[in-house]
């Protein structure tokens, strides 16, 4: 077994807004092993991006609180306990990130060369000549033709796919151990998405980097991920190896999700739907967040939050339906506390 | 010569000290920076009507005569003259020691040339009106010139040395003009002129008299406004200036570093009626309005108290003036005014338009006071502010409604009254008064060469003004002369022209 490179334990993230506190993440726990791709999937607003920003500690200090019991262990270090300068040494070097929209994520007034050079300078302390060499190498690696010319261009002069390649080059330039990719292909056309996904796969095997891949596209998950975590309204409701989840989803939300997408490989007459909509994080229902939309909801679901049930093969789900299926959960576990 | 002219503050009786040198030890020479706010458009002594021009050209040009600061005609380029019995022929004997700034000697030819410019209609000088009585000008000999008139004209002597009185070399206008240069006979000659900035004059060495022209150099410095002028004087950047805004008097009169003097001025302000417009065509209405106005309050509001209330003539005309107390209708009488209005059929009052000119600062407060005064006799004053250009246009086209007016600078009662109050076509009569009695008086005075008789006629005219009220003279703002303590003998002239600089000296 490879050891986990990142472990998130009981992450609670709260936004302080003028209209009151919004608790965006409510007890998220997961881990990523070396060289593994963890896919996080969930509908809009379920907390995927906030999770990733919490890991990078990129949320505004005064405006957000991460509960003190939360832990984000990166190679055993708790990122939440690091000082600002310590976390900066990790950002971009040990953990780096790529974002959904490659146009707005690149500084429009600097050449891409300058933006890549900046990371190399900061974290690898190379001389100017070495930096230039390294930069060209990386750009070649991500499949950019004639990189010598490109480095002097500005982001707007590149196409969308190319920009995302630049983002990836920038992210990987210091050989990070973990790459967080927040919907890296959502803004791209399918043909370009295919290019980028192929590139990520290729680089993963070349560089042995672990990836936290955030997406809302089941197809992308199916294509890329080794493990999947399904998020719903600030919580991970189900997680496990990708094949298992697709074959045999445990949580009704995962089931619903899988059944509600039209499939290229199937000929469904009618789609299954999940009724209703995702709850507002300011007024989540009592009990299970999904209960109001759940076709299997019981009385209990509406009042008591289901615990995380762990199954064999590293699978887990938090749903009362599986209360009895649990293999190693202590019987008197109290509601509301999840854990791996 | 340079006689001293006592300021208003200490005018005792009619002080007629003989002209003479100042008693304090002075040295000839020295420089003065004289500050002023307005620039002259050009320097042409014949073609430029602006008062700004006259202020400056009295330093560079001279006429046959001049009117001194006590409003008496004195000889200048003409050493003396004779008037024929019928008052139609004036024979002038010229000085023979006069040189132009270009070095040429002045002759009778030059005098004839200069004054004939007024007789040439195509030349287009604004001074032509003062010389309409002149029939011909002849040279008797090198130093004698004879003016023959169509009718007797008592103010010819004043006109010769007035606003347009200047002698220039013969043929000056044949190939050029005097817009930007000056070739006169005056005590100072133009050295350098940077319009809107400064004008530098220097002493003219060949000047014929040693009673004038003591300074080596005069710099006329244009400053943006009177505030700056004041600031400049206070900080010593400017040696002397003539302020027109009387408010400043209060501010600096006690400044120990400065000489500050108030002088009665030739300028006066009037409320002019459109005398042919209802209800102002009724003398009773005009009288009522005159009775309704508190001239003192108007004067205080407009000049901050630095001026004098007037009856029918500016105070600087000293001997000619019938004092306010001697004129009819001059004290405020609200009841009397109401009665008059009622008699005229306007017991309920009416709306009275009153035009003011935006660039004349005094008009607004004065109008507001008058509006306030007249509201008590039932008249609502509708104040209308117009631009000077609009005002002039309507005025000269006889279209102006009741309006404020400020005018003056005339050095003789005839010049003062005739054009304004003589019915058309002889006079201008812009107020459309068209009064027979008035016109008759003015005609009589014009041909009367006897001083007492003239005085008598003008007295009657002033009484007529007070009862008929074609126009309400309000007040005359005092001129304020400010100078550094080291500037002495600046003798203010009521016209506001800078004759004073020809007398001024610098004390070391």
């Amino acid at each position, binding site marked *: 077994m490879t050891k986990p490179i990142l472990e998130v334990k009981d992450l609670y993230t709260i936004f302080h807004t003028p209209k009151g506190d919004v608790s965006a993440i409510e007890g998220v726990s997961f881990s990523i092993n070396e060289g593994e791709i963890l896919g996080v999937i969930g509908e809009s607003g379920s907390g995927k991006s906030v999770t990733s920003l919490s890991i990078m500690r990129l949320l505004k200090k005064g405006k957000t609180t991460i509960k003190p019991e939360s832990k984000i262990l990166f190679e055993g270090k708790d990122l939440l306990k690091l000082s600002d300068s310590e976390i900066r040494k990790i950002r971009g070097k040990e953990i780096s990130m790529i974002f959904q929209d490659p146009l*707005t994520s690149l500084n*429009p007034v600097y050449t891409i060369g300058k933006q890549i050079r900046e990371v190399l300078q*900061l974290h690898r302390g190379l001389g100017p000549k070495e930096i230039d060499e390294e930069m060209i190498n990386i750009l070649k690696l991500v499949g950019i033709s004639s990189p010598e010319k490109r480095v002097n261009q500005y982001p707007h002069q590149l196409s969308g796919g190319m920009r995302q390649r630049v983002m990836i080059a920038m992210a990987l330039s210091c050989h990070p151990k973990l790459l967080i990719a927040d919907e890296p292909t959502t803004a791209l056309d399918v043909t370009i998405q295919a290019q980028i996904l192929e590139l990520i796969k290729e680089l993963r095997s070349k560089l042995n980097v672990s990836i936290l891949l955030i997406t809302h596209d089941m197809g992308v998950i199916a294509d890329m991920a080794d493990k999947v975590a399904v998020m719903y309204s600030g919580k991970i409701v189900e997680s496990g190896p990708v094949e298992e989840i697709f074959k045999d989803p445990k949580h009704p939300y995962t089931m619903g999700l899988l059944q509600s997408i039209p499939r290229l490989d199937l000929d469904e007459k009618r789609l299954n739907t999940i009724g209703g909509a995702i709850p507002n994080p300011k007024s989540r229902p009592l009990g299970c967040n999904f209960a109001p939309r759940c076709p299997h909801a019981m009385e209990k679901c509406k009042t008591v939050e289901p615990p995380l049930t762990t199954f064999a093969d590293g699978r887990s789900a938090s749903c009362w339906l599986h209360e009895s299926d649990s293999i190693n959960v202590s019987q008197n576990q109290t509601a509301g506390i999840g854990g791996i | 010569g340079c006689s001293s002219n006592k300021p208003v503050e200490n005018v005792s009786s009619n002080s007629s000290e003989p002209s003479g040198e100042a008693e304090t030890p002075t040295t000839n020479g020295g420089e003065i920076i004289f500050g002023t706010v307005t620039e002259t458009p050009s320097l042409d002594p014949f073609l430029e009507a602006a008062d700004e021009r006259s202020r400056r050209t009295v330093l560079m040009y001279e006429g046959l005569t001049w009117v001194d600061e006590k409003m008496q005609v004195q000889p200048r380029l003409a050493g003396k003259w004779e008037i024929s019995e019928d008052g139609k022929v004036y024979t002038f004997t010229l000085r023979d020691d006069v040189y132009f700034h270009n070095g040429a000697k002045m002759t009778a030819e030059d005098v004839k040339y200069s004054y004939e410019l007024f007789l040439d209609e195509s030349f287009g000088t604004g001074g032509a009106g003062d010389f309409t009585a002149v029939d011909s000008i002849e040279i008797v000999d090198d130093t004698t010139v004879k003016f023959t008139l169509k009718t007797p004209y008592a103010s010819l002597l004043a006109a010769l040395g007035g606003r347009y009185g200047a002698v220039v070399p013969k043929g000056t206008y044949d190939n050029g003009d005097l817009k930007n240069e000056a070739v006169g006979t005056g005590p100072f000659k133009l050295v350098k002129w940077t319009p809107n900035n400064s004008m530098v004059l220097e002493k003219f060495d060949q000047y014929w008299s040693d009673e004038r022209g003591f300074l080596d150099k005069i710099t006329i410095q244009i400053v943006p406004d009177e505030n700056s002028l004041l600031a400049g004087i206070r900080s010593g950047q400017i040696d002397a200036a003539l302020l027109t805004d009387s408010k400043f008097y209060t501010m600096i009169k006690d400044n120990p570093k400065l000489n500050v003097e108030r002088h009665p001025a030739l300028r006066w302000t009037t409320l002019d009626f459109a005398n042919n417009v209802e209800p102002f065509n009724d003398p009773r209405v005009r009288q009522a309005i005159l009775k309704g106005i508190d001239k003192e309050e108007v004067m205080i509001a407009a000049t901050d108290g630095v001026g004098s209330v007037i009856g029918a003539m500016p105070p600087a005309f000293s001997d000619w003036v019938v004092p306010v107390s001697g004129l009819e209708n001059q004290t405020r009488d609200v009841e009397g005014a109401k009665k008059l209005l009622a008699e005229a059929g306007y017991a309920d009052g009416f709306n009275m338009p009153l035009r003011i000119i935006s660039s004349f600062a005094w008009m607004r407060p004065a109008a507001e006071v008058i509006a306030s005064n007249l509201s008590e006799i039932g008249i609502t004053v509708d104040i209308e502010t117009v*631009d000077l250009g609009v005002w002039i246009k309507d005025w000269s086209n006889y279209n102006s409604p009741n309006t404020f007016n400020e005018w003056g600078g005339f050095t003789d009662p005839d010049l003062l009254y005739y054009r304004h109050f003589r019915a058309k076509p002889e006079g201008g009569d812009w107020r459309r008064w068209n009064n027979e009695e008035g016109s008759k008086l003015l005609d009589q005075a014009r041909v009367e060469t006897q001083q007492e008789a003239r005085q008598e006629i003008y007295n009657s005219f002033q009484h007529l003004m007070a009862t008929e009220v074609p126009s309400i003279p309000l007040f005359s703002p005092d001129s304020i002369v400010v100078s550094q303590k080291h500037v002495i003998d600046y003798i203010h002239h009521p016209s506001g022209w800078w004759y004073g600089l020809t007398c001024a000296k610098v004390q070391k």
Partner: protein
Amino acid sequence: MGVYVVKRILSMIPTIIGVSLLVFLLMELIPGSVVEQMLGIEGNNPEAQKKLEEFFGLNEPFYVQYWNWISGVIVGDLGVSWRSGDPILPTLLNAFIITGEMAVFAVIVSVIIGMPFGILAALKPYGIIDNILRVLSLAGVSIPVFFQGTLLILIFSLFFPWAPPVVYQYPWESLSQNLQIMILPAIALGIASSAVVMRMTRSSLLETLGQDFIRTARSKGITETAVIFGHALKNIWISVITAIGLEMGQILGGVVVVEVVFSLPGVGQLIFNSLVQRDFPIVIGGILFVTIIVLIINTMIDLIYKFVDPRIRYD
């Protein structure tokens, strides 16, 4: 680029023609003319009036007058003042040196005050400092410059025995006097403009700091200072330069009162006085001059964009 500059300059022409036509039209409509003023009340003389009108070409129809004038302008001849007979271009240039100097000083003051405070405010948005600065800047834009000028003059004459020189001195005549004259107007105008610059700096810095590429920069491990001064600031220059340009235009659009208050013989006073005196050629020449200057400033700002913001392409 060169082509672009030429095109930009050419595109100013219709506006310039429009402005000149408009001034001509307005001058035509405005009652009273120089002729009456020059003739004064003695001017009830149709002969002389006609002569003067002919002399100035006022008897010609509107379009002929316009044509005569514009054909002179094309060869750089703005005509001569009707009152003084001086050629207009040098007169305007002399006056504009003063106005221009004032505007430049004001802008310098405004940037020196406005930018640092704007940055300071944006660092902690809606914090105490920000709120104080916001209210102060609002107060700054709320005091009309002429009133501010009046207060400054009052304060100085009450509490300091110091008064600026009364006569304008060009910098090359006497630099120290020139600076003394300029200091009050520069402060009055600068304070008003600094509020605008500050607000612009603050809001665009805030907006920039909320953008994705800032998150990217932070995720690279760059220090916060470097993020703000390296990444964010370069992006806001555009807005700041725009603000400065607009302020320049604003200042030039409002020079009349300022120059009256501070007794500066600049273009504003010149135009205003000439307008009062109906000295047509100076008014129209002056307005055209100011318009062209404003347009040139706008064009220059446009061109500066090119250097600051590579996103704007010229083709």
